[in-house]
């Protein structure tokens, strides 16, 4: 079995979840690495889009900003933020990749603040950026995040981006497009999905050498567990070669694993 670190595991697991021919709006960091890897291995016909207006780039180097010129390098179109977001709003975009400081059992995300006073928070984070729009308007939300109790929390200080809000039917009731919502959560320990009826997060597969109680111990709410519980496939040699040599040769992202 090839050797790999937890970040490489997370990126390779995420890359496998994207089907060829799909459209995906991605952010920088691990989501971008996973999409680049997918484009160079299992999903050569993946159309990548970036919220500032980059459409269909052939990524050579990892973008640092979702608006930098690498996001439309050898691209099909350099358009506007409105055009990309409205393509999501029209229902054309299958996936978006998001992160956040906190996530709860319904996949709601906080990237705005810690603390109760909005005008004077304990910790101020950037806010929505495009996350609220992408999480509202794309069909499926993929989340890549490290797995610990600080992030996987019972109650968010602030819902920046809606997951399933407080359960089944809540997104539609709030006015969000029907049939949208969180799809998978990929961490350094496991892949989680959302239970079809209750919309609660459930463990779908454990990464190699990870035990279920370790996942639960690092989660601040009760996880459901899929029957039968799977094992996430290990990264294969080709994935690791492309990831290390072509996607992130400077180890900006995978160096953090």
């Amino acid at each position, binding site marked *: 079995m090839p050797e790999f670190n937890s970040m490489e595991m997370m990126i390779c697991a995420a890359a496998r979840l994207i089907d060829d021919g799909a459209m995906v709006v991605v952010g*920088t*960091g691990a989501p971008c690495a996973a999409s680049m890897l997918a484009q160079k291995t299992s999903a050569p016909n993946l159309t990548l889009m970036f*919220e*500032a*207006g980059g459409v269909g780039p052939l990524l*050579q*180097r990892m973008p*640092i*900003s*979702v*608006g*930098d*010129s690498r996001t*439309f*390098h050898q691209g099909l179109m*350099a*358009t*506007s*933020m*409105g055009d990309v*977001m409205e393509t999501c*709003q029209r229902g054309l975009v299958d996936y978006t990749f998001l992160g956040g400081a906190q996530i*709860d*059992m319904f996949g*709601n995300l906080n990237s*705005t603040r810690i603390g109760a006073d*909005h*005008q*004077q*928070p*304990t*910790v*101020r*984070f*950037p*806010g*929505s*950026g*495009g*996350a*609220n*729009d992408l999480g*509202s*308007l794309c069909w499926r939300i993929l989340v890549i995040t490290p797995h610990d109790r600080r992030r996987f929390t*019972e*109650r968010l200080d*602030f*819902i*920046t*981006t*809606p997951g399933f*809000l*407080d359960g089944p039917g*809540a997104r539609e*009731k*709030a*006015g*969000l*497009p029907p049939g949208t919502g969180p799809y998978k959560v990929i961490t350094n320990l496991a892949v989680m999905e959302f239970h079809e009826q209750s919309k609660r997060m459930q463990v779908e597969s454990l990464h190699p050498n990870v035990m279920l109680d370790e996942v639960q111990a690092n989660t601040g*709410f009760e996880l459901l567990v899929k029957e039968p519980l799977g094992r996430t496939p290990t990264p294969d040699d080709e994935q690791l070669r492309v990831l290390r040599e072509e996607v992130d040769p400077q180890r900006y992202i995978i160096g953090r694993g």
Partner: protein
Amino acid sequence: MARYKAQLQSKGPLFTSPDCNAAREYFRSKPKGMVNKVMSVSDAVAQFVSDGDYLASGGFGGDRIATAVMHEIVRQNKRGLGLAGHTTTHDFQILCAGNQTGRGQLLKRVDSAYIVGLEARGLSPHARRVMQSGEVEVCEWSNYTLALRFQAAAMGVPFLPARSLAGSDTFRHSAAVQITCPFTGETLIAVPALWPDVAAIHVHEADHYGNCRIRGTSVADWHVARAAKKLIISCERLIDNDEIRRDPTVTVIPFYCVDAVCEVRFGSYPGNMPYEYFSDEEHLRQWLVAEAGVDSYREFLDRFLFGIQDFAEYLEVCGGAQRLEELRNEELMV
């Protein structure tokens, strides 16, 4: 199990009036002659940015930003400004250097979609100090809904509907309103038009009258330029009006939106300028490191912003022609 109350009403402050007739009156009175608008950045800021104005910044945070104009706004010690923070990253970092550094309060109110962060580079310690101090009033939005507010203003209508924000605390702390579609009964989110008092946009090329060309993504600038009551353009290169007329298909901003044209080569530095130069990641890291301490940040600002004359001197202090050549090679991937 966590339970959240359905959010039907927002409670964020609305900083600007969505009155489209008042906007029409303003635009009616705006001078529309095709006159030479070329001037220095310091003259443009002195003439068109007033204390208390609401400001919009073009580009995307660290990409195609009007750095020179932002520096000058801070250097001229403008006070009490509002800001549209639609992915403001390094531009926000510059503007909040006017807060909590003992020089008066530059930012007073912020419509926030993305602030205090520099994307993959991390969070700005100073911007966090400012936004956690309570001295800046904040209203939440998302990148699209804030862009849509400019679009409504550019269209001359008081609001536009969107399908994002719904159900979230981002909505609750915004000034958006939940409405029912008169045709389908769908729940929609109405966002109010935003006419900034002044906007600064950096472009590739402009003529003396302010007809502008942009290469690469336009982000929200097509709408920001049309929504702004006053517009300062900085450009990499001044070009002849004949060149504009030779190919009008590539004009993105017309002269009648523009109040000042400033030629600033490398004007987006240390930000990225598509097809011209990549972002200076070393300098941006230096900035973030200096911000960690209040004293080290004061020294840094004296060296790179307050203690220098103009943008040309800033470029020199940051490594001059040799560094810019490196960034040009980085952009062109040579």
